[in-house]
Structure formats: C-alpha cells, structure tokens
C-alpha cells in the first residue's frame, strides 16, 4: 500500500482551526510521546503510579495488563480526554514532540492525537457525515474536497469497498466490525500524528479483529500507534513495543519479541503465561 506519500505532505499544508499554519512536525530528537512520572487520581483513588514511558514515532506500542491495571486510564491521558472526568487529577508530564500536552490548545492536541474507543461509537448520522464531521470542525476541507477526503479515509481504514454504494445511509446500518473501522476512518480523516486505540477489538468477532490488526500494521507508516489490549496474542501480533502494567504501575516495557519470550520481571512472566489476570 502506498499510503505514505498520499498523506505525509498533507499534514504540512493543513491549516489549524484558527487559520494559522500547523507547526511542521520537526524531526524531534526525543520520542513522539514521552510520559514522565505520571500519577493519576480519580477522586482519592490513585489509578496510576509514577509511570514513565516513551513511544517512538512510527512504532506500535501495546499496553497490556489485567483489567483495572490502569492501561486505559494511561491512554486516555495522552489526549487529555480524561480531563472530562469529574474530580480527576493528573501529576507528572506528558510530552508530545517535546511539548507539554497540558500547555498546548486541547482541541489541537486532540486533532493531532486521535482516538478509537472500546465500543464502536459512530454518530447517528450517515457514513459520509461521520467522516466529514472531523474535517468540518477542524476546517480541513472545502466542500469540493470533502468527498475525496472521505473516500481516502475510508480506503485507509479498508472500508471503502464495503460502503462506497451506501455512503449516505446511516452508520448504524453497518455491522459492529464495520462501525469500528468507520470510527478508525473518522479518526484518520483529520490526519492524526498519533492514534490511540482503547481495546478496539474487544467487541468484535475474529474476522473483524483480523482486519483491524492488519490495518494497524499499515498505519504504522503514517502514524505512531498506541493500543490497549486484553489479548496478548494481539499485542504480540501487532506491536513493536509492549508495556506491561499491573495495579497502576509500569512493570516493564520492552520490544515485543523480548517481552514475550524473555520477560525480565517474574510478574510479567506470570501474566503472559496465564498464571493470573
């Protein structure tokens, strides 16, 4: 797939919503995303303890761990979507291209860091309108370009052939797997630099899951991907780096092949061999 040349130049010419040119992604010396000593609280409950983790550009990073270990919470801090949770509080620093995510404009941050959720959540609009929405609010396409951009996003999410004849039908008419790919297409439409996937396949059948996994491998060429998953085989199949979290703490983070074949921590070994969690 020749997706890279199609999309890479676009992000440089795109205008942000205030009309100023987007900062061109400078070849940062550091990682794409860097979390340093992140603590997170829901009220008085501490969900994350002192997590430091780097995500390199163009790699897929998987976050694994048992339910309630904080992997989704961590992911949801990267685009500050957890800001909307009442009484929540984050300490520490998260840097995107060496910029503190809490110091940049939050809408622009979320445009750059896209997210796909656990359950498919298309808007109650047509397939076309679902994709066009992000383009519209970010002022990223003229009317005449809209169709092209919608088509490109759907192609990137490997959904175009299945929906090209019913773009103006309700998104709810699609199957669960198609809806989830629609949500991925919707996120991709605004050219995110990072894509966060929060257990994107947990509600899907194996065939849809396979399609989405294949997609993730392709996406690596155009974005940095972080995926939370319960499924260790999935992490092994799609990721370059895997981080294992337990009870809000980062136990270890290493290249996927190493982590699964030769874990450094006995707790990691216990988890990946299925002795708990």
């Amino acid at each position: 797939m020749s997706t890279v040349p199609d999309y890479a130049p676009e992000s440089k010419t795109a205008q942000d919503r205030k009309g100023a040119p987007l900062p061109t992604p400078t070849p940062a010396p550091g990682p794409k995303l860097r979390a340093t000593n992140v603590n997170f609280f829901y009220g008085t409950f501490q969900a994350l303890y002192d997590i430091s983790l780097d995500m390199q550009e163009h790699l897929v990073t998987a976050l694994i761990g048992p339910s309630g270990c904080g992997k989704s919470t961590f992911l949801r801090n990267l685009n500050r979507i957890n800001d909307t949770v009442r009484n929540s509080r984050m300490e520490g620093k998260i840097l995107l291209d060496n910029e503190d995510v809490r110091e940049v404009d939050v809408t622009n941050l979320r445009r750059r860091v896209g997210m796909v959720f656990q359950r498919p959540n298309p808007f109650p609009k047509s397939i076309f309108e679902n994709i066009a929405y992000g383009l519209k609010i970010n002022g990223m396409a003229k009317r005449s370009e809209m169709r092209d951009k919608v088509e490109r996003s759907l192609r990137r999410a490997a959904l175009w052939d299945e929906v090209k004849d019913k773009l103006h039908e309700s998104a709810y008419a699609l199957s669960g797997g198609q809806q989830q790919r629609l949500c991925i297409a919707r996120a991709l439409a605004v050219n995110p630099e990072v894509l966060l996937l929060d257990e994107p396949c947990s509600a899907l059948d194996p065939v849809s899951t396979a399609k989405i996994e294949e997609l993730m491998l392709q996406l690596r060429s155009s974005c940095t991907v972080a995926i939370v998953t319960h499924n260790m085989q999935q992490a092994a199949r799609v990721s370059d780096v895997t981080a294992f979290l337990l009870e809000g703490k980062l136990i270890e983070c290493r290249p996927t092949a190493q982590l699964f074949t030769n874990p450094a921590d006995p707790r990691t070994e216990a988890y990946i061999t299925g002795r708990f969690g």
Partner: protein
Amino acid sequence: MATPLVVETPVIRRQTQAGDIVARWVVTVFAASILFVTALLVYQLWTGSAPSRLKSGFGFLTSTQWNPVTEEFGALPFIYGTVLTSVLALLISVPLGLGAAIYLAELAPARLSDALTFLVELLAAIPSVIYGVLAIFAVVPLMRSHVEPFLKSSLGFLPLFKGPSLGVGFLTAGVVLSIMTVPYIVSVSRESLLAVPREQREAALALGATRWEMVWQVVVPYAKLGIFGSIFLSLARALGETMAVTMVIGNDPKIRASLLAPGYSIAAVIANEFSEATGATYQAALVELGLILFVLTIIINAVARLMIAATTRKGSKRS
C-alpha cells in the same frame, strides 16, 4: 431420568398459568379502560355538539361572528386565538427552555444543576391559576407600561404591533404560556441530554471538537427525539391551557392582526360561558368548540409524529 420431570412439570405449569391468566385479564381491562374513556369522550363531544353542527354545518369553522343573543356562532376567532397564543408561547419557550436545559445538563456544576432542576420541576407543578394571578399582577402591568410601548416605538410599522397598549391580549397570553411551558421543555430536554452516552461525547472531543461544538453538533442532535417530545408536550399544554389564558387574553372574540390586541381562546370561552349558556344551540356550540380543540390536538400530535419520523429516518436510526 425423564419420568419425574414429566410428573412434576404440569403441577408447576398449572399454578403459573392460573396466575398468568388473572394478571393478563386485569391488565387488559385496565388498558381497555383507556380506550373506553377516549371513545366515550368522542361520543359525548359528537352528540353534545349535534344541534350546533346541524344548524351551522361547516360554516361554524369559518364564521367569525360570535353572538349568543342572536344565536350566531362561529369558531374561527377562538381557533385563531388558541393557535396564535400557543405558537407565540413556543417561539419564546423553545429557545429559552432548550438553552436552560443545555446549561443544566452540560455546563453547570453538578450541585447547582441539581438545585436548579429541583426548582424547575417545582415550577412545572404549580397550578395554572397561580400563574394567572402572577400574570395579572406582574406580567400585564409590565407589558402595558414597558414592553408594548417599546415594541410599538421600535417595530410599530409592522401590523403586528399596532393599536393601544392594553396589557392584555395575544402577546401577553403567549408570554404567560411560555412561562408555564418552559419548565416542561427544560425538564424533559435535560433528561434526554443526560441520556446521551458518554461515548458520543468522547467521540466528538477526541476529534478536536470544542465543548460547545460537542454539545451543539453531537449531543443535541442525539437527544433530538426527547427534545421534540418536550416541545410537543409543551404545545399540548399551551393549546389546552384555560385558567391563565382566560385571565390575560382579553376575552374578545375578534380576529386581529396585532399581537397587542385582545382575543379569545377555545378553552377560555368554554370555561367562561358554559355555566351561563342558555339554549340548546349555545351549549352545543361550546361543546363543538371542545370537539375542535380535541381534533386540533390530535392533528398536531400526528404532525409531530410524522415530523419525528421524517427527521429520524435519514441517517439517524438507533440500533
């Protein structure tokens, strides 16, 4: 293995079935009573209005004369007054109520929202005669000495705002009705906004939507069925509201273009004149007005349902 099961099952089934049958009949009768009451209502309105219907025919709907002394009865001024005041009320209460609902559901801090919602629900429960009193002592003087002179001086070139400032009339009735219907819109719309799933909000925010874009472009459209519902509930209340309207509309059966002029509504004329309606035709004419109000309500509800069906068909089916 199977034998004991076969012996036991009929006993259990017979007991459940007896209870089921009784329950089934009881609820069926309850449900049928609704149908019975509706049928009885239609029958009463139909037969009670017979003398008037036979005398005036369809002319009743189009005549603008209402003169009990000469036994001339025409419904048009009342239909006009009812529809006009209800439309005015919605023009004011829909933006106001929806705005307040959005604030309470999306923007207000939780504690403030709870307190205000409690007050709003209290407002919805106040008897309409209280609103009537409030209207006479507060709204009418305000309209007469401030709002109406202002409208005349600024928009007086329109036929809508001509004539003396009486304080009572279509506009005042519309304002009072809007005050009475806002609590319904706020309360029901707020519930529907709160019922929008968190995933929808997060989907919008994750794409870079601002809070207001999320609310206005995603949350409100998702809740539109409930919001429409609240509007039609309000419209039904406005059409049938009797007491408060009677107190401020002016009670003059005339069709006038000016919103400042006095008028009359169907509910108001029935309440005012029924006890003193002498003569079979007079009484029957009032019953026929009741029939018209009933039909009007049905038509508006039907149109509402069609509108909802039309707006939800395209691209917004809920699975």
